[in-house]
Structure formats: C-alpha cells, structure tokens
C-alpha cells in the first residue's frame, strides 16, 4: 500500500500506535508495518512531518533521551490526542462502512 492510499489516515495510525506506549519514530514505523503485516510501507522519512504536525497540534508530545550514544526523541499521546483518537476511530469506522456499502463489501 503506497503513501497516496494512506493519505489522510497516517495521523490515525500514528495516534493508534502511540496510544499503547511511547515510541520513537523508527519504532512507530516498525509497529505500523508489523500491525499491517507489512502491507503498509511508506517512505520512512515522511513519518516525521506527521509526528511533528501532531505534536504542534497538541495531540502528542515528545521527550529527548539518549540511546546508544545517540539523541533519541520519543513521542507519547496526551489527553487531547486520546480524545482525538476516539473521534478519528469513529470517523474511520463510519467511512469504512460507507465505502463498504457502496462497493458491496461491508466491513
């Protein structure tokens, strides 16, 4: 699944992954890959603009640490992000149901 197909849904996936535990960017990508059974494969670098956009929106926050001698930035969802995730999930289910109804393949 390419990046265009995922356009508009990346934020939802990131929030969903981060809702479970704080992660750094690479871990978020690996988790998305893992959960999608490697069906979702986007250019890894495009994950960071999304993470930064979510942080700027106040849905997630980040902290810096050091791992293996490198600076590492980890993200976690804040309360506003949790609320937004609930909204996004509902919206996604409605979207899938609507498209499924049109295409004859309900979710």
């Amino acid at each position: 699944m390419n990046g265009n197909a995922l356009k508009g849904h990346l934020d939802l996936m990131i929030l969903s992954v981060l809702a479970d535990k704080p992660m750094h960017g690479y871990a978020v990508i690996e988790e998305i890959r893992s959960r999608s059974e490697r069906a979702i494969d986007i250019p890894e670098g495009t994950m960071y603009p999304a993470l930064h956009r979510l942080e700027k929106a106040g849905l997630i926050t980040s902290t810096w640490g050091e791992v293996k001698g490198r600076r590492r930035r980890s993200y976690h969802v804040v309360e506003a992000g949790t609320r937004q995730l609930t909204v996004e999930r509902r919206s996604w289910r409605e979207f899938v149901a609507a498209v499924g109804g049109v295409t004859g393949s309900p979710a």
Partner: protein
Amino acid sequence: MSGEEAGFRAGDPIDRYLAALAEKLAGQRDADDLVAEMEDHLRESTEHLIQDGRSLEDAQRAAIRRFGDPDLISHALLAGRGRRRLADPVTVTRWPFLIAELLLITAGLALAASAYAYWQPCGLPVTSTGGSQATGPHIVTDHVFHSFGIPRECLGRSDTVAAIPAATALVSDILETFAYAALGLAWLIFVTAQPWLPVTRILAAVPAVLSLVEAAARTLLARPPDGDILGMGIVLGFLFDRFVMPTVLLMLMFCLGMLLSVLLISDDQLSDRGLNWPGHSSRTRHSTMPWGTYLTRTYLLFLVALAAEPIHNWLMTLSILGVFFGLDEETPSAAANYLIAIGIAGPALLSIVVGVVWRRRGPAAARSWTARGEAITR
C-alpha cells in the same frame, strides 16, 4: 550496538545524507534536533538491516532509500512552518551600492570643502591636514605645525573655533553637517536594502541613525555664539565634539570599511557565495537554495564585522582615552594623537584587510562560516 561499534565512520553515506538534509533545513530553529532525530532513525534502521545480514554499506544505502529523498523530506518537514524555501533566484540589488557610493563621494567632497573652509583662512594647506576638522579629535601636533611652517595662530583651531570668523565657521559647519547627513543616509540606504533579518538591519543601521542624529543636532545647535545665553550650545557642542562625533565617525569608518569589503568582492565570488548581481547568471544554483542558506551566506560579511568588533571596541577605547589625555592641553600629545589615529583608521583598515583576505579564501570560507552564521541568525 552503537554507531561506533557498527563501524560507522565520518563521511559515510548517512553522514552525507544528513549533511544534505541539514543544508536544506538551514535556518530552522530546531534544525539540529531534526537532523539528530533523522540520524537516530537512519542509524537504527542500518543496525537492523545489518542484523538481517546486509553489509554495512549496503545497509546504510538501504536505510537511506527507505527514508526517502532529502528534498522530499525537508520539503515535508518545512511545510506549514511559515518559513518557505526560496523559490526565486536571490539577487543582491546593485542600486543601493551605487546610491551609497554617490552619497559617499558627495559626503567626501563636503568634508573636504568643510576642512578647506576651516583651515584655509589661516593659510594652512588643506592637503597637509587631511581634513582634520572632519575627524573629530584633531590629529595635528605642535611639531607638525612647525614642520609645515604653518602660522602659529592656526594651532588654536585644533581645539577651538574661537579664532575663526563666524561666517567661515558657519560654512564649515554647514558642509560638515551635510556630510554627516549624507554619510548616514548612504549607510541607511545600503543597510535597509539588504535582505537581512530585521534585527540585523536595525543593528547595522545604528551608525547611520547616529550620524543623522549628529547632523540634526548640529543643525539645531547652529547659532551665533552670543545667542547661546545659557551656554548650553557650548556644553552640547563640547560633548558632541569630544564623545558623540568620535564615536559616530569610528562606527562610520568601520561600516564604510565593510562596504568597501563588499565592493571588493567580484561577481564570481558573489556567485560562489550564492549571491549575484542583477544580470549575472547563477539562477540554477539559486533556484534550489533554501532561504536559511542564502540568508546565512548573505550574512557572512556581517559576521566579519562581528568577529572584528572586539578589536574595534578596543581601538575605539584607545581613541577616547587619547581624547582624554589631550583634553586639558593646548594641543593633544603625540601619544594621544597616535591613539586617536589608530582608533579612527584601525577599524576601517581592519575591515578592508578582512575583506581582501575573505575574497581570497573564497567559497570554502563561506561554507566554513555557514554553521556559525545559522547560529547567529536565529
């Protein structure tokens, strides 16, 4: 496994990728953080690929490939930040230089005429004094007077205007005031036309504003001596002559030295720095240059001034000390004069030397200064 354990070395593909990314993110406040985050990602990705059986170099290239093109990534990172990349070629307009040059020439002629009006009535060859009227503290000693066979009555003019006919002094003052205004205006036009950050333009405009203030103050204080009932004109005149005028002149000289440094740089050198005069080609080079990089390179000459500033201050302090040493004497002492001369000429000469050296060093120097420029321009 740390980067070192994995055998990473300076100049590997990831380093080069990060350098390219850093250049595109130049000017961003959090550029270092962004690059550090990307590096963590690429290193970790490489480590995992190595664990999957790939060679170091192959893993690095694969990690970079998966991460995406630096142009694409930087564009995405910068999107929505309010700082756009530069879309059009950067042009340093030539007209401010030309107008500044014309004004400087005009000011120079006015200063020369002012000096002539000041010294000529007592028979002193103007060329031998170098326009000392315009240089605040007068660099003229008793020895110099005698050496040139200058009439003794001229000596008083190095410290006071009392011996000068009012009409002559007025003409000299008017010309000098005009020169101050022209100098200030020249520098102001030059500075405001530069594509620097507002704060930089404000700082760089200080000498121009001081010069214009000096001109305005001189205009307001211009009156016959007997009209100065409370003596405020004398007091203010003393303060201007002893403190404000030397300071303004020092700053102006320094700034004019900077201007000359800019003019010394050839079109090719400007092009190498990512700048160009109108009508010169380097559009392709500029079309992809990030705003931060351009701004940094534009800043390079200003950085030269900043680097020289401590020396400038030291020389200026010497100059003011020199004024104090010579304050109560009929003529300033030789030592004081030397200090004054160094203080006045030093910054300008230093700027010129730095400009020439800078020109010779070329683009390599520009690159080496980039990081520091970014730090200052934030």
